[in-house]
């Protein structure tokens, strides 16, 4: 069990090797790919079972990898409550993605499956890396298969979309690479272990630049306004599986990067840039919603909705309190499930009609009742209806945002709740409701068994996470506490200890944020008026540790 993480990450690679040597028998190739992803998923289940609800990294493997010159890179992997669920999400989505284009991709099946599995390696690797260099490797590694998936098996304008995706992402990540090097040299000799970097006391000015470099990479990936324009193109052109993975996992790389790297590494800069980032996130929410509303292409609409949803995640993360981050994390998973499902749905009708224009549809409910039901559930999950997963995340994000200094932003962001209903329902209405007037639509077949099997786990997850999110939140809580404590402690450290005399830290532009809400009043946690049943402060709580 010591190597379970490596096992999970590299099972798909084994699948790739197997696929490479297999004959070009499409059914067999698909089967092997699906089998590989299923095995990976099953293996990853053991992570949940073995996971201890503590803040530390678990399943850690630390093997020296590159030792040359002044550098020391390790194969250092491990997960905590934050990455656990993203790993699971990845392994969970993968079989679904493979199944989703079971019949749609007829050409170059071998290459296609190889790309998908390679992509999985990259994604899993990025989530489990605790070594910045290793992380970067996996981060870049994801680009190649995704590029091919969009470019080879995509739609009409696929080349443009693929190249745009690749270069856009590349620009950001290369700047991050420079920042990684800089941090490394600042930290002095050693390895690229992120926990080591957490404790490097960088001066605020440096942090500013480094944060910007990291944030650019992550913001592009998220994508945040105004760096989002690659996304609609990429989504629209990608084959269904590509869109699903892109939405479900790849975009999470950005937000994950923020929470794992940008924020704890550069606490001062985080504090300083929180208003900016929050502003962009809020603009993203409102703007993307408005733009989504007017889309004529279903897939593009869903793509823009992704931008809006990810805006919520960013707000949550930057609220920097339990609720906000937990909500953001949940929202990441939710978005993976719901938007992944939406893309699958778009894929289903595209496979049948070879069009995605809203105006080509209408009244499908009559013809495809099962499809309609599932579509509706997913739509409402995306809107964030209570009882579905979307709500819990969105609610916690907004709650967290409201408790933090981001209150004004959060209020505007809350309006996204209305807008999401507008664009999703309008789209749903135009596609599913109304007269079944188009003769081509009158012969559509309802979902087949494969498609139902694809959707079933997603629908189940929508409800499970909506009704009983506790296990998800519980597992991530200690890690979030630790993260907050980490970020907070560093935020005050340079101010409190002006070491070196000349350290006149540029005070964060914001008043020291009362993040975590009650941190200010948390001292008297045993307030007499505290109602019974009120949750006691968790042990690793920032209020407790800050003292």
């Amino acid at each position, binding site marked *: 069990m010591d190597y379970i993480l490596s096992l999970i990450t590299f099972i798909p690679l084994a699948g790739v090797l197997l696929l490479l040597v297999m004959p070009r028998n499409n059914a067999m190739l698909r089967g092997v790919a699906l089998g590989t992803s299923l095995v990976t998923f099953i293996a990853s289940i053991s992570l949940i079972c073995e996971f201890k609800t503590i803040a530390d990294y678990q399943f850690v493997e630390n093997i020296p990898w590159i030792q040359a010159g002044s550098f020391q890179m390790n194969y250092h992997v491990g997960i905590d409550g934050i990455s656990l669920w993203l790993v699971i999400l990845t392994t969970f989505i993968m079989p679904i993605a493979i199944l989703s284009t079971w019949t749609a991709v007829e050409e170059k099946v071998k290459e296609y499956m190889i790309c998908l599995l390679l992509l999985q390696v990259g994604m899993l690797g990025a989530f489990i890396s605790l070594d910045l260099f290793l992380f970067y490797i996996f981060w870049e590694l994801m680009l190649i298969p995704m590029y091919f998936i969009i470019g080879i098996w995509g739609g009409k304008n696929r080349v443009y979309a693929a190249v745009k995706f690749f270069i856009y992402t590349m620009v950001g990540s290369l700047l991050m690479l420079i920042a990684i090097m800089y941090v490394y040299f600042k930290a002095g000799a050693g390895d690229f272990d992120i926990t080591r970097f957490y404790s490097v006391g960088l001066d605020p000015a440096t942090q500013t630049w480094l944060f910007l470099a990291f944030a650019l990479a992550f913001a592009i990936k998220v994508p945040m306004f105004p760096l989002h324009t690659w996304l609609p193109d990429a989504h629209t052109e990608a084959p269904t599986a590509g869109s699903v993975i892109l939405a479900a996992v790849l975009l999470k790389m950005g937000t994950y990067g923020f929470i794992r790297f940008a924020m704890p590494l550069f606490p001062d800069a985080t504090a300083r840039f929180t208003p900016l980032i929050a502003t962009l996130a809020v603009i993203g929410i409102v703007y993307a919603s408005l733009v989504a509303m007017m889309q004529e292409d279903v897939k593009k609409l869903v793509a823009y909705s992704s931008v809006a949803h990810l805006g919520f995640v960013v707000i949550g993360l930057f609220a920097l309190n339990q609720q906000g981050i937990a909500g953001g994390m949940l929202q990441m998973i939710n978005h993976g499930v719901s938007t992944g499902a939406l893309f699958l749905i778009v894929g289903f009708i595209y496979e049948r009609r070879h069009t995605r224009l809203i105006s080509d549809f209408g009244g499908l409910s009559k013809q495809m009742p099962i499809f309609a039901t599932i579509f509706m559930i997913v739509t409402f999950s995306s809107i964030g209806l209570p009882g579905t997963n979307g709500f819990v995340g969105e609610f916690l994000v907004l709650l967290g945002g409201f408790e933090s200094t981001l209150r004004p932003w959060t209020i505007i962001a809350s309006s996204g709740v209305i807008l999401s209903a*507008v664009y999703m329902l309008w789209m749903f*209405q135009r596609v599913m409701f*109304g007269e*079944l007037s188009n003769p081509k639509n009158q012969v559509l077949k309802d979902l087949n068994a494969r498609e139902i099997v694809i959707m079933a786990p997603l629908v189940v997850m929508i409800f499970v996470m909506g009704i009983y999110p*506790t296990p998800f939140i519980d597992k991530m809580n200690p890690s979030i506490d630790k993260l907050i404590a980490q970020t907070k402690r560093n935020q005050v450290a340079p101010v409190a200890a002006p070491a070196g005399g000349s350290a006149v830290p540029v005070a964060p532009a914001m008043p020291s944020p009362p993040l975590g809400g009650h941190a200010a009043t948390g001292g008297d946690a045993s307030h007499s008026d505290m*109602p019974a049943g009120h949750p006691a402060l968790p042990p690793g709580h920032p209020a407790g540790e800050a003292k």
Partner: protein
Amino acid sequence: MFDNVWLIPLFPLIGFLINGLLGKKIKNEAVIGGIGTLAIFGSFLVSCGILLEMISRAPENRVFEKVVFTWIHSGNFKADMAFLLDPLSCIMIMVVTGVGSLIHLYSIGYMHGEEGFYRFFAYLNLFCMSMLLLVLGSNMLVMFIGWEGVGLCSYLLIGYYFHKKSAGDAAKKAFVMNRVGDFGFLVGLFTLYWWLGENANVWTINFMEIKKASHFLPYGGVVTVATLCFFVGATGKSAQIPLFTWLPDAMEGPTPVSALIHAATMVTAGVYMIGRMSFVFIKSPDTMMVIAVVGAATAIFAATIGTAQNDIKRVLAYSTVSQLGFMFLAMGTGAFAAGIFHLMTHAFFKACLFLGSGSVIHAMHYALHHAHSHDDAQDMRNMGGLRKSMPITFITFLVSTIAIAGIPGFSGFFSKDEILWQAFSNPYHGGLNIILWGIGAIAACFTAFYMFRLVFMTFYGDCRISAKAKGHLHESPLVITIPLMVLGFLAAVGGYIGLPKLIGELFGGIPNYFELWLEPVFEMAQEYGHQYAQSGGHHNPALEWGLMGGSVLIALVGISIAFTMYVKNTDLPGKFTSTFPALHRAVYNKWYIDELYDFLFVNPCKALGNFLWKGFDVLIVDGMVNGVAAVVKGWSSAFRYSETGYVHNYAFVMAAGTVTILGYYIFR
């Protein structure tokens, strides 16, 4: 019994799941309908048990909280899936399950033969479950599940005939409008939670805990903000100005839906919520004022529109909006019990009215269908004289109409009169009292008028459909009429549990049981209310009698006008419209509110969206991205001309480069 409270929402959930998942396989309407009805009836039985137990308990022991499981727990935030039983929620579950059961039963008959019969029952069950969650929720978040859940179900039910574009539009409109309200609710929730936590270290969204901590809340200020936000939520759900326009459109759904959603349950959620959080609302006089004013305004506003509509369900819809306005008026004047009382009586008579109208439509539809006529089965201008062919419907309908019109002895009278009295005598709004009362009274007059107009046009006079169709008119089956009779009965007598003190004294001091029952819930509200009351309640029996008489008189005036116009002198309405064409057009077109909203919000939003997409996103944002690429490529194709292919040019560049370098280093 209290411990089993979780069964109440569970039964309809089970019903929903069975019908929703298996309904298509079951196919048998009786089974499907039976499951649906039994599910909610089971809840009704449990509710009865709870009611009985609660009655048997001492008033101070009537609050009970049942935690089923912890739903969300993150840091200091905790939301349990928990149910709260107290006299208020007890009334609500009785109303919801009771009226709900009847409507389910009714639906079996009404929806007979409809495509997607199972779907309808599944939705109804889901709806009831949501509503029950709403009223039973022990914290704001569980309430919010129900709150959004009823929104969802109304979406599903209004959009039941999804192939009709109007139905889809109406459904979407309902949901979006509700979402606007939900946005308010959420912000209110956040504000309250954050403020209490930050300033009182009470991190909770639990109603009882907030109540306990409500002494921390200041008067006005942040509470005004929070309560106004909540009120926005309430206006969305309860179709108050400015978010009322979805409700009339919602008549696109099948009639039982209108009865269930838009009469008895969902729209009352806002009222209930204000009642549930009265201890917070009472702390903000400004909010209370706003609520009262909005309520009164809605009452009169919707009533005016109701006078000119021809669609039988639309009249009822505007009537609902208007009646909800009354309830908000009550809430806004601190008469929470009166508001809830009206909520209950309204549930009876309005459900009866809707179901009655459904019965009429059902019959008309049948008749018109068999006569191969394409006339609108819902248009009152096609009806008339139905009292002969549909006696039971007529009688129950008439009873309910009398009740809503406020004729003494029927339930509506007691509740409405209570509200008007409270509006007049409440200590809060100073000079506004008279105006509020006046508006209320005029609205009541209108109510009497348009309701009787409805009755007269539908049941009196001559039948205006073709003779051929006329022959097919007949009374609806028992499964439809039984609920009508029960509801008619309740509409008639339901008011007696809340006899005004004044009348109660006449009969030997019968107390207002209803107010007594709710007193523990609202006592705190009362207490706070008096703290800022300018003067104590100036209870003047003579005045109260006078006002009571006045309101009766007003109702009678309305009825007689209707009688004059639609029974005696049927050409009067035509004359009236030709005299004031503009006014009629405005009223008929609902004061052009929909158009105004389109103009103010919908179209600008679309235009903005379009601009942001095509003008900003594609041209500017993406244009910048592609522009950078284009610039680089442009440079590329420009720079490639530096490679002229001529050796001397290359040599020249080399030499020039060398000279530049040398020059720089030598002469710097």
